[in-house]
């Protein structure tokens, strides 16, 4: 029997602290697929690329490298379900392997805490594991509850695949990998004009100017509506999810426009398609539901009967 692939699971800040449902769904899905996720004791913030990349490159790279050394010591690659964490960890790993000057500066900082960046591991996103290691065909074989008839809009976000010449993941002007993974769920892909623009939160614009950042989010929602609407919006990033999810509540307050989209992380979409119940991973705990005192639109998601049965 071949050994199960094992990854250090980099949780980041948003997943465990704001959307633990994503963490739970990921654990269910990866366990179903026969992949081990290892706890990363001692991990800090990645650090958030938009914020900490804006202060000082060496500081950003040092904190990221400290996280990388935890995985290097254990000898397993990292996987993360956040485009932001992926950006900081992947980019710093890449830059530290290429840029000797940066590496020397970072290792001088790390020496004080008895660590050293060696450049011995790789950083992956869940999408890489699902697509390159498991394969979409095998993902599909685990689908026991296809989400037939559910209209699904996608928000791939930016930092898993951009800049494309450096990341070499997908053609970020015409991406297909994220779509293929989501389509294994059986939901119907809905194309809309602004699929590839930022969610609005990126680069910490959410931190700089909330209203401007929500302006984009609104543009995205309007673009989906113009394409005939969608029952769910799926993203591979919890920061995008936060923006699309709580952004609806904030947009209502600031612009007086009401949107009612259910937003899911790709792990949550797959957990449902793999037959897990929404209660098993806390789908209804998403912040927009607690803030609005509502729940997911079970009927639209084809989950009504199941949800009632378990209630």
């Amino acid at each position, binding site marked *: 029997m071949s050994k199960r692939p094992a990854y250090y699971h980099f949780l980041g*800040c948003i997943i465990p602290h704001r959307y633990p449902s994503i963490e739970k769904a990921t654990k269910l899905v990866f366990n179903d697929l026969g992949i081990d996720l290892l706890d990363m004791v001692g991990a800090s913030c990645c650090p958030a690329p938009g914020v*900490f*990349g804006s202060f*000082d490159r060496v500081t950003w790279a040092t*904190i990221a490298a*400290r996280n990388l050394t935890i995985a290097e010591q254990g000898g397993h690659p990292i996987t993360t379900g956040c485009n932001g964490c992926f950006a900081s960890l992947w980019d710093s790993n890449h830059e530290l392997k290429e840029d000797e000057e940066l590496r020397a500066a970072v290792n001088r900082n790390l020496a004080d805490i008895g660590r050293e960046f060696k450049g011995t591991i790789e950083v992956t996103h869940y999408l890489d594991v699902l697509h390159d290691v498991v394969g979409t065909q095998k993902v599909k074989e685990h689908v026991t509850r296809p989400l037939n008839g559910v209209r699904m809009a996608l928000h791939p976000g930016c930092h898993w695949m951009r800049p494309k010449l450096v990341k070499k993941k997908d053609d970020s002007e015409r991406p297909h990998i994220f779509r293929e993974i989501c389509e294994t769920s059986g939901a119907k892909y809905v194309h809309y004009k602004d699929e590839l623009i930022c969610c*609005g939160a990126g680069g910490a614009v959410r931190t*700089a100017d909330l209203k401007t950042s929500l302006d*984009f989010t609104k543009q995205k929602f309007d673009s989906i509506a113009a394409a005939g609407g969608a029952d769910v919006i799926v993203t591979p990033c919890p920061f995008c999810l936060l923006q699309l999810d709580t952004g609806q509540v904030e947009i209502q307050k600031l612009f007086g426009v009401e949107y009612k989209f259910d937003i899911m992380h790709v792990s949550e979409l797959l957990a449902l398609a793999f037959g897990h119940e929404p209660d098993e991973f806390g789908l209804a705990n998403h912040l927009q539901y607690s803030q609005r005192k509502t729940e997911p639109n079970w009927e639209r998601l084809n989950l009504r009967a199941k949800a009632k049965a378990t209630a």
Partner: protein
Amino acid sequence: MAENWGQLKSFEGKKFEALDAEFTKEVSKLIGGQDLTACFQCAKCSAGCPVSDKVNIQVHELMRMLLFGFREVLDTDMVWLCTTCYQCQQRCPQGIEITDIIFGLKNMAFRKGITPPGYVTSRKALYDNGKLYEPTDWERDDLALPPVPHLDVAETRKVLGKTGLMRLQEGE
């Protein structure tokens, strides 16, 4: 608290100091800055930029300001409203790493204390807690999730002390 960033709202009636070759030289050393002179102002960057319709000064104008050596570029809203989506960089026909240049400009602006207040709050959170959010324990308990793996904040604080995160701004 008065906003101190994005204060250059228009070129209209604005008188700039003589071209500052030193500043252009300085930004040429940023990542991506070595290709600054390759910019021929096609404005494809601004055409693909999702904030073009939301900012006072657009990306191609920012690029021109760098070539002209206008230090006032650090006061444009484009610097802090860049979402780092990399669209400009990917579409630049001259292959200029525009997003990387903007990251470098943010580093320069931050040192001068030109930054949205939220960034300063996040900096403190990283130093104090090593993370940007605190866990909601009951929610994790409900989902039978174990506690978030332990982080020794003393270690991250020590390394941040060494990098000087809390003393980056001039006069701190």
